[in-house]
């Protein structure tokens, strides 16, 4: 630290006011009441991703053409990038800061591209300690697969029990092929199996094997049996209808039922959309009957749009009252609805209009008014056994090693949410087996302050689609992957929110020359930083925080 010059006599002074030293003695850092600190933040996309995929870094890799590295980074947080790139409803994009500038990034399309580009890549079996504990995972849907993957990654011996003949759960049984080609699913499950996860198919809990047996044979148990029980309409003649889920399972396993031309789909959720679009591909003319309006439909907007686009008809503000069999043809007695005050779901309550009954004719009626878990195999146990703790914060049931997750725990949700649940279960199981408390994850601040000045407008990459005529005539994937060039260009649109990419702005704009560039990062010289805040303001991506100095 330089000391100030003190003249004790005029003889020590030069004749005129000429400088003898720089201002290094003048520690202007003492002026500061706000301290800039580099603190990387959570990109809203990453925060919104149920799996916490490190999207900014992945996109950065993609932008430089490092697709394999990007794929590996996906697999740090998700075993199913190929699946997610196609079927995830990408909440990441809904929260993308770029949507406030021009359009959100097409993150899903990039994930899809990366997974496709690395389809044949065999990722190395991770270096992991050998662990003797055995874990059983019941159900091989997204929750079960995620749980198994993350446990296997840490060296646990995992066995997955699946009632169906092939693993995948709803991914295989519920999601139509035009949204998820089975070779993608097969490949990603294969990679999980390569890590030592054992799959026992055709094994239904409570039927082929008892839960108590599993519990005795394993050190921990994860129940992820999904939500396969369709909700009833509770109307006369309901038995004449097919549940949407039954219909989808039949089609998806290669046994499409005879449905005729005119198909009514009751419901407004994603299952209803899948049913309608599947029916369309079987040559039917589906009509979706929904008791509220399009606005209130619980299905993802994109799905509704696709359905509309492909020619699915909609009958809004209508609810079935009864189903009659009229010489082999079905007649649905329906009633008109109007919307009342919002209910607990926040949507406006449908109210029947008395005397507005009308008739809809159909060859087939599909009901898709929701699914729920069937935990009959567990219910008694849950009720009689003591020591079952409900940890609501984790969304898990925990009873001396029994954990529950996915749709079985939450009711129908998204693929990514189910995977998140499985991933959290894996973490909880590890903590349980190691006798540790679940580590508290440090929640980072979200990067919400993007300085748009440093970006130029560039439209979002369009997602290629098959022409409608081609789409509805087969079960081929409706969307097509983007090209490598498009993926790179799209990735370059990423703001990299909350993640420093060495853009130099902080160094460039420091009026006090108090920021230095050191080996691929920056350092603030707090001896001189006056705390003006320009670095934080001009950081394009909210990496720098200003914190109050303690006075």
């Amino acid at each position, binding site marked *: 630290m330089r000391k100030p010059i003190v003249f004790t006599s005029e003889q020590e002074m030069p004749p005129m006011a000429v400088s003898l030293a720089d201002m290094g003695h003048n520690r202007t850092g003492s002026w500061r009441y706000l301290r800039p600190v580099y603190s990387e933040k959570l990109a809203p996309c990453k925060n919104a991703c149920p799996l916490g995929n490190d999207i900014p870094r992945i996109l950065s890799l993609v932008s430089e053409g490092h697709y394999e590295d990007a794929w590996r980074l996906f697999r740090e947080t998700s075993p199913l990038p190929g699946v997610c790139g196609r079927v995830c409803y990408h909440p990441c994009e809904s929260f993308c800061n770029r949507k406030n500038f021009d359009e959100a990034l097409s993150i899903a399309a990039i994930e899809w591209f990366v997974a496709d580009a690395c389809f044949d890549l065999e990722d190395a079996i991770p270096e992991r300690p050998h662990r003797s504990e055995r874990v059983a995972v019941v159900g091989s849907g997204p929750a079960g697969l995620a749980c198994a993957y993350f446990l296997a990654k840490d060296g646990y011996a995992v066995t997955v029990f699946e009632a169906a003949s092939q693993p995948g759960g709803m991914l295989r049984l519920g999601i139509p092929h035009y949204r998820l080609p089975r070779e993608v699913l097969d490949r990603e499950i294969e990679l999980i199996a390569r890590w030592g996860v054992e799959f026992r198919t055709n094994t239904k809990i409570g039927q082929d094997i008892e839960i108590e047996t599993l519990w005795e044979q394993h050190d921990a148990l994860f129940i992820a049996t999904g939500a396969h029980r369709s909700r009833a309409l509770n109307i006369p003649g309901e038995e004449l209808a097919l549940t949407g889920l039954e219909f989808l399972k039949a089609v998806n396993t290669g046994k499409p039922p005879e449905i005729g031309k005119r198909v009514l789909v009751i419901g407004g959720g994603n299952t209803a959309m899948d049913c309608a679009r599947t029916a369309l591909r079987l040559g039917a003319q589906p009509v979706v009957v929904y008791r509220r309006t399009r606005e209130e439909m619980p299905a993802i907007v994109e799905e509704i749009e696709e359905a509309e686009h492909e020619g699915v008809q909609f009958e809004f503000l209508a609810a079935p009252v009864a189903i009659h069999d009229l010489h082999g043809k079905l007649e649905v007695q329906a009633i008109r609805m109007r919307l009342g005050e919002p209910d607990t779901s926040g949507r406006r309550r449908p109210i029947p209009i008395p005397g507005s009954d009308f008739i809809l004719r159909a060859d087939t009626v599909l009901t898709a008014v929701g699914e729920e878990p069937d935990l009959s195999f567990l219910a008694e146990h849950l009720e009689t056994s003591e020591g079952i703790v409900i940890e609501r914060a984790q969304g898990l049931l925990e009873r001396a090693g029994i954990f529950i997750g996915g749709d079985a725990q939450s009711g129908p949700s998204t693929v990514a949410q189910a995977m998140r649940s499985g991933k959290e279960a894996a973490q909880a199981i590890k903590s349980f087996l190691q006798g540790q408390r679940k580590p508290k994850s440090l929640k980072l601040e979200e990067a919400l302050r993007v300085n748009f000045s440093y970006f130029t407008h560039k439209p979002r990459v369009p997602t290629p689609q098959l022409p409608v005529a081609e789409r509805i005539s087969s079960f081929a994937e409706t969307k097509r992957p983007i090209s490598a060039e498009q993926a790179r260009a799209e990735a370059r649109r990423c703001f990299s929110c909350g993640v420093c990419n060495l*853009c130099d702005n902080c160094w460039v*704009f420091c009026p006090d020359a108090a920021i230095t560039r050191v080996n691929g990062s920056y350092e603030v010289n707090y001896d001189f930083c006056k705390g003006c*805040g320009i670095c934080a303001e001009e950081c394009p991506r909210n990496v720098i925080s200003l914190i109050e100095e303690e006075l």
Partner: protein
Amino acid sequence: MKNFTLPSEELMGSGHLGCQGCGGALAMRYALKAVGDHTIVVIPACCWTIIAGPFPYTSLKVPVLHTAFETAAVAASGVRAALDIQGDTETTVLAWAGDGGTFDIGLQSLSGAAERNENIIYICYDNEAYMNTGIQRSGATPFLAWTTTTPEKTPKAEPKKDIMAIMVAHRIPYAATATIAYPDDFIRKVQRAKSIYGTKFLHVLAPCPPGWKASSEWAVKLSRLAVQTRAFPLYEVEDGERYTLNAPNPDEPAIPVSEYLKLQGRFGHLTEQDVQTIQEITERRWQKLLRLVSESS
């Protein structure tokens, strides 16, 4: 991914006495990076008299001559003459003055130097008032701005002096505007100026957070908004006739000037009508600049 390509040489040291978020300090940092260490800086009375540091210190790693308020250009002329006669034609002489020392008290000597085409770079870092003495109005203070000598009840009734037009009228080889939010443009212009013989003039808008009653972290943002709202377009004029527009892009819609004004407490008293008037004046000047650009191309 770099947004800018700044020379890494740091000729302005830390510990200087600029206020938090000083636009003038940032401007000096860029200017010295651009012009390099073979430079002598001449500083008349202005904020930089203080910023540079008191005797026996200096915050600049180049020689500095402090001189009287109205003498930047001519003292620089003297330095230039002395260097030339001693055989040093390589060292750049940079006069570095505020708006008061340029638009007002120093205009005569600046005009003289420009008329003689002295081989110097003259940079006016314009913070739009006498900030060092405590925010008094200058010829560079914008229309309707508050200063301590133009209180809110009688804000400045006159428009900002068009210093660029005055300098261009001298037909000096190079005149340009620049500002701190555009470091690459700034540095390119200083380097351009360095490469040309004769009097080169840069009018640099240097936001002053205390004087503009704005948050210090907005110094760069204000500079950027000044350009984006067309209140302070970036352009160059060669030989008093060839105009080149650098920013903002005339094909893009302008940001309303209110976006720039509303961040500054010195405009806090403006009525909607006032803002509208300023918008119209801004637009007129912008159109005039576009005409000059198109006429010279």
